[in-house]
């Protein structure tokens, strides 16, 4: 039985990364995360792989993408184009698609190349299963919920236990998923945004005030913090601007670097997490989207 079918009856959760959103069984966790790449694994092993990217000037046919994936030196064709099943056709209505299967040794996969005429994105999705077995009913549901662009001006990131809605003007620059610390870094011209998540909060705080820990965790957060409320959580914020008088003002204008810094940290007591945001750059406030970003950034 494939990994997809074994978990089909369980809970499902949202997975969203850099423009792509889908629903997967709750037991499937990311094993590898790239800028435009996700490998999800079930307890039984690798279950699903996604790879996507923007198309060039003209959106090629999905079959062309498939042709490019064939190994050049292979004596036989490893990847076989296949027609989509009725369930997959229904799930992916509105996309240009080409199904495929491959089998090599003890591994096999069924997948589909999806080209979106609306956002001009090409996505390869494949489900791993034992040779001779199919992708299973879980794959149908995953593809039904598949979205490669949103209707709003924000991009959703939902991986592991964090969920954020980041303004689309920011581009994902880097990510770190370490035990106890997650970091998503974004950038746009003249501004850098970093989302932090620390845990477990009770161990990190150990009775110390949040301000002390915040200064240690967010380098650059100097001065007196202001109290703030993010959603239902209490937190602290630091804002720093360039000196507005004297020689330091002229020095700041002549030298590139982050002139405006905003740091926020709040304690999600119910989730035992510390959530934080760093915003640094040469763009002056106000940043009207910052409040909405903080409200939507949560540990789930």
């Amino acid at each position: 039985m494939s990994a997809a079918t074994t978990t089909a009856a369980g809970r499902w959760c949202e997975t969203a990364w850099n423009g792509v959103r889908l629903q997967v069984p709750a037991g499937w966790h990311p094993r590898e995360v790239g800028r435009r790449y996700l490998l999800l694994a079930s307890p039984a092993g690798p279950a699903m792989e996604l790879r996507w990217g923007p198309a060039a000037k003209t959106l090629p046919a999905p079959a062309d993408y498939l042709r490019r994936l064939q190994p050049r030196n292979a004596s036989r064709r490893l990847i076989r184009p296949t027609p989509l099943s009725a369930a997959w056709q229904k799930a992916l209505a509105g996309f240009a698609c080409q199904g495929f299967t491959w089998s090599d040794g003890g591994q096999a996969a069924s997948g589909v190349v999806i080209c979106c005429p609306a956002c001009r994105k090409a996505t390869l999705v494949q489900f791993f299963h034992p040779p001779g077995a199919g992708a299973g009913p879980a794959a149908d549901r995953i593809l039904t919920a598949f979205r490669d662009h949103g209707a709003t001006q924000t991009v959703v990131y939902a991986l592991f236990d964090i969920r954020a809605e980041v303004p689309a003007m920011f581009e994902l620059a880097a990510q770190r998923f370490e035990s106890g610390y997650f970091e998503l870094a974004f950038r746009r011209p003249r501004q850098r945004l970093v989302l932090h998540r620390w845990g477990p909060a009770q161990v990190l705080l150990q009775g110390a005030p949040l301000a002390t820990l915040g200064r240690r965790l967010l380098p650059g957060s100097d001065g007196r913090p202001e109290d703030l409320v993010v959603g239902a959580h209490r937190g602290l914020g630091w804002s720093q601007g360039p000196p507005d008088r004297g020689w330091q003002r002229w020095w700041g204008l002549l030298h590139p670097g982050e002139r405006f810094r905003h740091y926020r940290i709040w304690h999600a007591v119910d989730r035992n997490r510390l959530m934080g945001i760093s915003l640094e750059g040469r763009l002056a406030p106000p940043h009207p989207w910052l409040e909405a970003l903080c409200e939507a950034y949560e540990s789930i």
Partner: protein
Amino acid sequence: MKVFKRRAAASAGASREASLACRPAKNPEVQETLQDSGELLLTYPVRARPWFEALARRLGAPAAGVQTRRLQLDTLGTAAWQLLDGQRTVAAVVQAFGRKFQLHPREAEVSVTRFLKELGKRGLIGLKAPPGAVRTAAGRPPRT
């Protein structure tokens, strides 16, 4: 002459499932000291390596014998150590640890397995393989 030799395939080792099914057991020679902070200090004996002892003897140094080392555990390490009762499997320890600190299952697994690996390197714990999964160090079944 072959310039680029093919590397020998690395030993596959135990699978993830097999590793999670093992039961970690504490070394009985390890002494635990509970400190005021609630954290544990582990004291354990270490025997010098034979080649080092031989070298020391040749150079006329006194025999190193058995030395005592200490390992200070933090809050998370103490909690994980206290979960090792010789009965729980690695998977059960991961689950209990994750539940205690409200960690994501994958995050708890990485934290606990890394910690156990470190303890194993120092000889503070051993791993009992589940019945029917006896393997040699190279990952092959033992010769009969």
